Each structure stands twice: as C-alpha cells, then as structure tokens.
C-alpha cells in the first residue's frame, strides 16, 4: 500500500529542486484539498473536464438560508426624492416585489413589498403593548407574548398598496418592468389572532362603528377601519409564511385587513381606538384618496378592485424562437373574494380565451393563470382580464380613465398590455 510519503515522492518534477506542475493545486483542490493526496491525482482522473461542483463537496448548510450566488433577484428600492415625506432623509422608502422573476403565488418574505412612510422602527417586543380602548366596556392591553396563547388564525392573502401601478396613470407607458408597474403587490400566509376575539374581550359598545388603528413608527401612521370589517375578517398578524413578522412588515404585530388597501393594515400596531366616526387622518385625506376630474376626491376606497397582469412573458425577456408554443402566465386578484375567471388576449383585446386557473383558488389571494400561446413571429399584444366571484370585470385602460380621469394616483387596476414585436422583443404598451 502506498503511503503519503510514497505519493509525494512519486510527483514528477517540472524543474529542479522540487518544483511541481502548476496545475497540481487545482487538481488536488478540486479533489477535495490536501487530504486527497491519498488519491492518485496524477493518474488520469476520471473527473477531468467535469463541472467543478462535481469534483468537491460543497459548503455546509447555513443557519438561515439564502438564494444561490447566481441569482440576483432583489427588490427595487425607490430612488431618493420620490416620496412626499422627502426620502432624501433616511427612512421613508418603498421596496417593490420583482414579479418578472417570480413564479407561484406566495412571495418569499424577503421579497414582499414594503412601504415605510417613517422608516422601519427597531421594536423590542418586550416593550411593545397593544391597547384597545375608546367605546369599549373594558379597555385592555396585550403584550406580544400573551397573543401567542390565543387560537391561531391563518390565512393566505395578497397585499396590495393602492398606489400599486401609479405610474400607469401617466400619459406615456414607459417601458416599465413588472416590479415598477406591479411591485407593490405580494402574497403570503399570515398567522395571528382574530381581531373580533380581542374586541369581544374588550366589549365593544353599541355606538362603536369605527376603529382608529395607530402604529408605533416615528410618524404614528393611523387609519380608520369600519367596525363591520374589523368584526368580519380582520386579524392581528404575528407571523408571515410561518416565521415572525419581519421588521419591514410590522414586527412584532400588524393589523391585517384582507382585501383592503395595504396602508390600512397598520404595521407596528399598538393602539386600537373604538369610536363612532373616522378620524380623517393624514393617510386617509392627504394620501390614498383619488382625485376625480371634477375636483372631488374619492375617500375610503378601501376594498381593492379586481386586477390581473401577465408575468411571463414580459419585457424582462426576449422570445427566443418563432413558431413555437409558449406559456402565458400571470397573476389575478380581487379584494372582494375569489377569482372566477381570467381571459387572455393575444390581439390587444379583440378576442379572448379563458386561461387555466392554478388551484386551489383562494379568496383574496393571488391566483395564477396559464394559457399556451403559439407565437408565429408576427407582432402581438398580450393582455389578461380578470373577473372575480362577484362578477366584477377588470376594466380597460380607456374605461378606467373615462370614469376617473388621470389624476387619481391611487387604485389603478386597468388591463395591462405587453407589445410583442417581430423579433420577439417585448415592451410595455398602452392598448
């Protein structure tokens, strides 16, 4: 049997005084480091020419996993100066989900969109308290820890900022990637405690018709929530996709109002005031209200409307081959319940075909649709149109603008169009 010493003696010199072949380290490293000197490295290894990751054991597991080094998928962060609060100062910021690179209906927690009007507070859960007060028989306070002893409510829901797609109110389409046009939308499994259960414990009085929710951020973001919603399906979310909420999602607790515009699901929740009227807070007057052509503004447009978008193909790619069958897939959602139907058009809305919906179709959750499409190489305009279980149909851009003008800023939900050119190039277009 060959000893290590024998092997070392066996290495053929390339010059005097022990200089060895310059590729020796590469070979021995590829075979697993110095220890592999026990293997006959120079005798025509069968691994010669194989991919490097086949020739050495990989890294050990990470305590908290992360994507491949080869994946660059990341959230788009708004550049400074875009924000009404003036985000040249740290804090006020938003992060957009990169739907052009995602498949599925659950958004990875680290890619879930965020809007932080006053930055992300670094909350110590042991010093955080939720207080329920106002028109209740028993004003109560809850620690983060006590809420964990309550029965768990778990629901899969999309969340959408009503400012999602706000750039699409502009006159020119701009070649927006999906994160820019639809990135203020994500889907997750949320778990927590029924709000109705906590309100019942406090004993809401008959005149209590609204709840004013306030967060523990440096701006105390506040919104008024109708009591019927609070008693119906709102909950206090403590977990997202099975783990504790992340700070950007409201750690240690946030309000969650399924199907309502995202801003109402107040993050870092610490105060619920039961009242007989809304508080008309800054974020329900100055912001999140839609200016109409007659100068009036829609207020409390809380329930998100039916909407869809094709996520693949998109302008993030070029179709590689003509006369081939491609899958057209995308997402549809509605604040009113389940998606009943999604139709796809390849001719700018002249004709439509019903797409397959990926089950299970859950209420107030992203629903993925698919339809095969044979591209013959001629220009095409791809669109999707969603219908929800209430029968509400996603409008065309023209219908939406005719009804609401172009200064609404929020709640844009019209049909979206991809223009495909003869070379397989794809651009965002208005059609």
């Amino acid at each position, binding site marked *: 049997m060959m000893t290590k010493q024998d092997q070392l003696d066996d290495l053929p010199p390339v010059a005097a005084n022990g200089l060895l072949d310059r590729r020796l380290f590469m070979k021995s490293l590829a075979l697993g480091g110095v220890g592999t000197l026990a293997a006959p490295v120079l005798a025509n290894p069968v691994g010669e020419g194989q991919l490097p990751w086949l020739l050495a054991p990989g890294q050990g597991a990470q305590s908290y996993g992360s994507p491949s080094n080869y994946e660059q998928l990341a959230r788009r962060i708004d550049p400074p100066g875009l924000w009404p609060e003036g985000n040249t100062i740290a804090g006020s910021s938003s992060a957009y989900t990169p739907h052009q690179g995602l498949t599925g209906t659950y958004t990875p927690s680290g890619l879930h969109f965020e809007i932080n009007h006053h930055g992300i507070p670094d909350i110590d859960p042991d010093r955080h308290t939720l207080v329920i007060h106002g028109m209740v028989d028993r004003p109560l306070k809850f620690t983060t820890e006590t809420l964990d002893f309550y029965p768990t409510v778990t629901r899969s829901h999309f969340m959408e900022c009503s400012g999602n797609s706000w750039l699409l109110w502009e006159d020119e389409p701009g070649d927006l990637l999906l994160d820019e046009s639809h990135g203020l939308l994500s889907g997750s499994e949320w778990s927590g405690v029924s709000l109705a259960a906590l309100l019942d414990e406090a004993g809401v009085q008959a005149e209590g018709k609204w709840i*004013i929710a306030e967060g523990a951020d440096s701006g105390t973001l506040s919104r008024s929530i109708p009591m019927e919603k609070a008693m119906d399906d709102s909950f206090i979310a403590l977990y997202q996709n099975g783990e504790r909420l992340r700070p950007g999602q409201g750690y240690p607790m946030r309000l969650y109002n399924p199907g309502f515009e995202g801003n109402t699901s107040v993050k870092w929740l610490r105060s619920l005031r039961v009242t007989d009227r809304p508080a008309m807070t800054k974020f329900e007057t100055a912001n999140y*209200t839609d200016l109409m052509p007659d100068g009036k503004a829609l207020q409390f447009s809380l329930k998100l409307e039916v909407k869809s978008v094709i996520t693949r193909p998109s302008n993030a790619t070029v179709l590689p081959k003509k006369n081939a069958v491609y899958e057209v897939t995308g997402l549809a959602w509605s604040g009113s319940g389940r998606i009943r139907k999604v139709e796809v058009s390849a001719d700018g809305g002249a004709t439509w075909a019903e797409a397959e919906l990926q089950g299970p179709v859950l209420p107030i959750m992203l629903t993925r649709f698919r339809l095969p499409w044979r591209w013959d190489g001629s220009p095409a305009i791809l669109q999707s149109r969603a219908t929800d279980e209430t029968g509400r149909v996603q409008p065309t851009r023209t219908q939406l603008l005719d009804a609401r003008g172009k200064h609404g800023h929020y709640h844009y939900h019209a049909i979206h169009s991809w223009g495909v050119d003869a070379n397989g190039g794809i651009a965002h277009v208005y059609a």
Partner: protein
Amino acid sequence: MKTEESLMYMRNWILFLTIALTTCVDGADTPELGQPASEADIEQVFWSVFPDGENLPAGSGLAVDGKALFNIYCIACHGIEGAGLTAVALVGGQGSLATDTPLKTIGSYRPYAPTIFKYIRRSMPYIAPMSLSNDDYYAVTAYLLELNGILEPGSVVNAETLPKVRMPNRDGFVNAYPKVPRKYDY
C-alpha cells in the same frame, strides 16, 4: 302532515346546530389574557385627533412664532414659506383640483385643520418627531394656515379655535366605501 312535521323537526335541528356552532367559534374560546388598560396606558398610545377637536392637547400658538420655528425645523425639506423642496409643498394650489395640473397641499386639499395639527405634532420634524412643545406645534400650524390664507393674521390657534377653522376643501371628499359612487364607476 307527517312529512311536514319531520321537516319542521329537521329545520329546528339545523337551527339549533347553527346557533351552537356560531357560539363555539365566538371569542369566548380564547384565554382572555388582556390586562386592564389605565388612562395613562391609553394616553401613551393614543395620538389621533378628530375633526371636531377630540384629543387636542392644551396649549396655543401664533403664526409669528410658527414662522420662526418653521424656518429652523421645516424649511430644509418644505422650502421657503412651504413652497415645497424635497418634501411636498404645503401652500398653494387652491382652485387647481379640477384642472389638468392639480396641486394638493394642506391649503388646497386637506378637509380638516385639527388632523393637520395631529400629523405635524406626532410626525414632525421628520428626523425628530415630538421634539417640540404643544405650543410650538400649534404655532407652526397657525403659520401654515396663515400662509394659505385660511386664517387672519394674528389668529390664536388652540384646541378651541382649530376645530372651527373652515378648510377650503372641506366638502371635497366623496365616500367610496363600501362602493365607488356610480358617477365615478365604469
């Protein structure tokens, strides 16, 4: 007759079961761990101010003092006389909302004065919220309302006077919950 009786029997059973099930999923099935919240606990977390002035604090201010404060704490982001810079304009835009270049400011858009005070008091200056006194916040509010031509020069702004301020866009909002009014629907 017999069929009807048994149908009624079944109906009663269904009714009974429905009531029983509804009661079971009620909040009574939680451990009820909420602790009594004191007035101090509530004061700590409750900052909202209502259009009628509920929850406005004691104190008062004048625009002349507000201008001095504004020029120290606000001007860097909101610009000279609130004209806007890196942060939104706070002045102007009255009469612009129905035009093709609407300018939404506290003067042209906000429907209630007390909630403007609340936001300034609880959120500003952006990098150091709650760092001024209630008098200071009333004074800054007075300055912004005077700049917008909403208050007469020298007006005292406090918990009594602020709810009485009539904002130009007071009637500019249309409730869209639970449904967008037909006029604005497609």
